[in-house]
């Protein structure tokens, strides 16, 4: 913390921070085109879903062998990316790492959006989505699917609280500053500010709540991705039947999450002109964090692929051959090298942790992370536990259909819509925490 500021200086600086962070909420340059694009994609997605509802899952390429295709890969990717909220807000927050302050809300927004839509992805994959309530009405505790539904719901709720509780003081500031906004928007601010008057007791309470939630979310977040991995690991299939699937998935989750946050940071920094708040130092730190996460994930990848590859047991051997040299080889090596090893090696060097290179590398990592999930989910199913001869060709091959691709994109569009709405209604960098960090006394921030 810097030296103590005088009251006058504090007020001036606070006004400056408020101006900088609220300005993007008032200008809507380029927003129309973006919203139009999102709505167009949304319409196409809904049409695809209509087709799937009408004709059943037969409109997809999901057949006898490959039952879980792009939808489930997408689900794993969504759950994975949503874990970043826990890493930034909780792990780094509880360790009192100072530089995360401007990134917490970005991370929480990403976490909430991805977690929310993870649940929707699973409904898209269901053969009978109309029976979704049966999960609660007839739920059976021994089913990993039920564990997953439970923890994803819990995670969404805690993420929601962890996004909106730290936003209470900001909502009060917005109430004061956004007097010209529409009535409903003011009502939202009024509701979310929860009678905030910046009393010392309120500050004590809010800090305690954030702390409690930050602790609660750690086991929940670990649980959602561990349980997701158990959906696979609890079967007998080669490539899934692995004891390290939990940590393997969790470590992979942090890779895609950090990459997603870097991409969002770059976008908000340039479009919202937040160069003074999200600085090069932040990209530097996040780049370092990504290197660390890639290292951990690489370690688990080695365990997951090298150990069975050393033995090449019968069925496992077929599976690994398909990945290493067979029809999945191009995708496998592209994701392992282009989406993990090379980004990691590049990010070790400081020039690559500057904003633009970090953005480009993160895009590679994020896209690689999506395809990595596909590589975990699909190839395994093409090598059943008891292989038989003369299987129909369409059992073995898996070529996603147009409907399937559209319905994979639909939740992504949903995520972008949620992020857009949150970033247009609320400052994407927390005002009061930034002000507090700059040495402005709490009593001034009203």
């Amino acid at each position, binding site marked *: 913390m810097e030296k103590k500021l005088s009251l006058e200086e504090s007020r001036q600086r606070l006004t400056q921070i408020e101006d900088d962070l609220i300005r993007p909420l008032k200008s809507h340059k380029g927003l129309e085109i973006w919203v139009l694009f999102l709505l167009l994609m949304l319409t196409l997605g809904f049409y695809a879903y209509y087709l799937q509802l009408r004709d059943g899952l037969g409109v997809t390429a999901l057949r006898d062998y490959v039952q879980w295709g792009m939808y489930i890969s997408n689900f794993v990717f969504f759950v994975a990316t949503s874990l970043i909220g826990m890493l930034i807000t909780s792990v780094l927050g509880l360790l009192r790492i100072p530089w995360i302050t401007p990134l917490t809300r970005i991370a929480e927004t990403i976490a909430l959006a991805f977690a929310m839509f993870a649940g929707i992805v699973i409904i898209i994959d*269901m053969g*009978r989505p109309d029976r979704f309530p049966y*999960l609660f009405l007839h739920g059976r505790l021994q089913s990993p699917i039920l564990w997953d539904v439970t923890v994803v719901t819990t995670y969404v709720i805690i993420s929601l609280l962890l996004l909106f509780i730290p936003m209470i003081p900001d909502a009060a500031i917005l109430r004061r500053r956004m007097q010209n906004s529409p009535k409903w928007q003011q009502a939202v601010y009024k509701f979310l500010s929860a009678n905030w008057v910046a009393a010392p007791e309120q500050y004590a309470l809010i800090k305690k709540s954030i702390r409690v939630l930050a602790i609660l979310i750690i086991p929940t977040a670990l649980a959602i991705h561990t349980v997701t991995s158990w959906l696979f690991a609890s079967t007998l299939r080669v490539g899934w039947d692995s004891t390290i699937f939990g940590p393997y998935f969790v470590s992979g989750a942090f890779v895609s999450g950090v990459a997603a946050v870097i991409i969002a940071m770059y976008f908000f920094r340039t479009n919202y002109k937040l160069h003074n708040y999200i600085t090069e130092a932040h990209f530097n730190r996040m780049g370092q964090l990504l290197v660390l996460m890639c290292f951990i994930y690489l370690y688990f990848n080695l365990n997951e692929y090298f150990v069975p590859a050393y033995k090449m047991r019968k069925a496992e051997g077929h599976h690994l051959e398909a990945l290493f040299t067979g029809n999945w080889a191009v995708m496998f090596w592209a994701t392992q090298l282009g989406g993990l090893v090379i980004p990691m090696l590049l990010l070790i060097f400081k020039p690559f942790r500057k904003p633009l290179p970090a953005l480009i590398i993160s895009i590679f990592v994020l896209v690689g992370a999506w395809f990595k999930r596909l590589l975990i989910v699909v190839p395994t199913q093409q090598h059943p536990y008891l292989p038989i001869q003369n299987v129909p060709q369409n059992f073995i091959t898996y070529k996603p259909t147009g409907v399937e691709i559209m319905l994979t994109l639909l939740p992504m569009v949903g995520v972008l819509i949620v992020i857009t709405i949150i970033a247009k209604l609320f400052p994407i960098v927390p005002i009061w925490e930034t002000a507090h960090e700059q040495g402005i006394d709490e009593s001034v921030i009203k």
Partner: protein
Amino acid sequence: MRYAMAIDTRKCVGCGDCVVACQVENNVPIGYCRDWVVESMAGTYPKLEIEIRSERCNHCDNAPCVRCCPTGASHIVEGGIVLVTHQKCIGCGACIQSCPYDARYSHPDGYVDKCTFCNHRIAEGKDPACVSVCPTKCMYFGDLDDPNSPVSKALQDRRYKTLAPEAGTHPQIYYLL
């Protein structure tokens, strides 16, 4: 009571009548099947050996599909028959993934379907459709707890195997060798 089936791999000619009978009896949609015939070849020419097996759900004692079902649609009824209540199935596919025998499929109407041992026919005292049509009479069905049932008798004086015993599922389809 424990229903089971024994299939004589030496008598089976792989005609596929069991598959057709099942599809007709249970109204299985075209392109899907609840039972299927596997031919597995071993040896090198000219010393070749072929084993023909009519396969279906193994109605396991320790059924992974029942364990992982989130709604209880997959369940075990008296006699150890593993069934799916179509009206309760949400079509998540977890059971399909957990079955080491690949015995289940996703019905075009969204739910999961599989062999029922023709329990509607058993209730009438008949054999399952596949057993009753087999032209070589290579299939034996009945109650394992009854020493005089066809399946118990078939298992008494023949060597037999089950599929993937290492999976720990205790399958109830026996293949006579």
